[in-house]
């Protein structure tokens, strides 16, 4: 069992689910938790030189750059704009999940070959 992999995927999924939750019913707490989870996922992906790690890292950074401004905008009173930014982050998070699945499959083949 690889704890780091579990943690990374846990945070990616948590970021995705709380992101969806915020879009469907905008709530400040959910947005803050989404930001925190997403930042955890980004840090855990940092420096991972695996097959699709660069793409994973990039998609995570994109989500961060949408969510952090969304957090400030939401608390400054512009809820609509914050939801819009969170939708952008959701797209990046979905890509992140897809890349994560592809990477897991490719990594399995590599391990089998080795």
């Amino acid at each position: 069992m690889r704890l780091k992999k579990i943690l990374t995927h846990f945070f990616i999924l948590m970021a995705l689910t709380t992101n969806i939750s915020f879009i469907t019913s905008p709530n400040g707490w959910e947005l803050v938790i989404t930001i925190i989870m997403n930042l955890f996922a980004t840090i855990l992906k940092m420096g991972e030189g695996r097959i699709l790690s660069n793409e994973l890292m990039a998609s995570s950074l994109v989500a961060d750059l949408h969510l952090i401004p969304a957090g400030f905008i939401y608390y400054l009173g512009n809820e609509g704009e914050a939801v819009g930014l969170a939708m952008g982050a959701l797209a990046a998070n979905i890509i992140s999940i897809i890349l994560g699945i592809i990477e897991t499959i490719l990594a399995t083949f590599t391990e089998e070959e080795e």
Partner: protein
Amino acid sequence: MARLRLKRKKLRRKKTLKDIYEERLFEILRQFQLPLLMLHTVMSVGTIGYMILSDGDFINSLYMTIITVGTIGYGEVVRGSDTLIGRIFTTFLALGGIGVFTTSVTILIRVFFAEDFVGVFRAWKMLNDIEKLRNHYILCGFNRTTLELIKLLKKRKINYVVIDSRKEIERQLKESRVEYYILEEPYKRMILEAAGIKRAKGLVVNLGDDARNIAVIVTARLLRPDKENFFIFSFASNPETAQKLEELGANRAIVPQKLLATRLAAYIFHTGSAYISDLFDKIAFGEESEIDILELQVAEDSPLIGKKLKEIDLRKQLGVTVIAIRKSDGSLNLTITGDTEIELGDTLILFGHPKRLRVAQKILTERARELVGGRDEA
């Protein structure tokens, strides 16, 4: 499943020097993970804690966490932080957070400087730039001779890549404004490939040790076996070694002492005609940028064959002068006139401005028919 595995095997390529530098960059980045995780955990706990106390005031909670953990302490700016529970929370956050903050920042700075993140990134970027070079020269070994050679190459706008295994010369390379360099062992196949040997025009081997020179020459010749299209020039400690190096793959091996002696002797022998001997010397050694000599072998199917020099009048048409003709048997005809006829196997020795010589070479090899035809019509 099996097909996919096969495809992956095909996709897998040999590791390059750029890949190694990329891995080093990732390794350094990986070291940032722990301090950043520690810092992020503290910041998250602090922000959520103050948000609970203030009933969801995110911006002030984040601000309060930063001024507490960062030991700024402007006061209790968040609603609820001035209560008993708020102060207990701030106490524990400050106790744990300040330690984590200072430790994390220290580790981040140490990793950034100790692992030379900027240096590795710069080297990686340089390898990227080297990939774009074409028809350049690879100079193995950096010393005063290389530096003089670099000056002459720069004068002729010829690109070059220096390879040397000594990391301590980096400052010297930067001071000498050497644009592209690789600080690795030059005899390794991977390093020569990273220097763009497949696209290079030639290689100069000057490592100050015959054994190391041999290692580089052999590796380079294995990668570029064609002696006509890839030139290897090497330094040798004595004439015997020079001969061996040439047998092993060098186009020319030079014994520096012998070369110096020859040049000195030329000065001694031509003391009476110092200017002209010096001029020829400079042209021969590439120091004179206004005049150059070019050898141009007449192709088998060239329309120039059978023509008299006065018929093609290269001086008038292309601004270059034929000063001699080397015959197919190796003899040199120095007494040429306008009536001298160009024969099969001849090599024209052209004299003129480097720019005009380049144009002449292009026209005489690619469009000689136009030149002859144009003259005929005229």
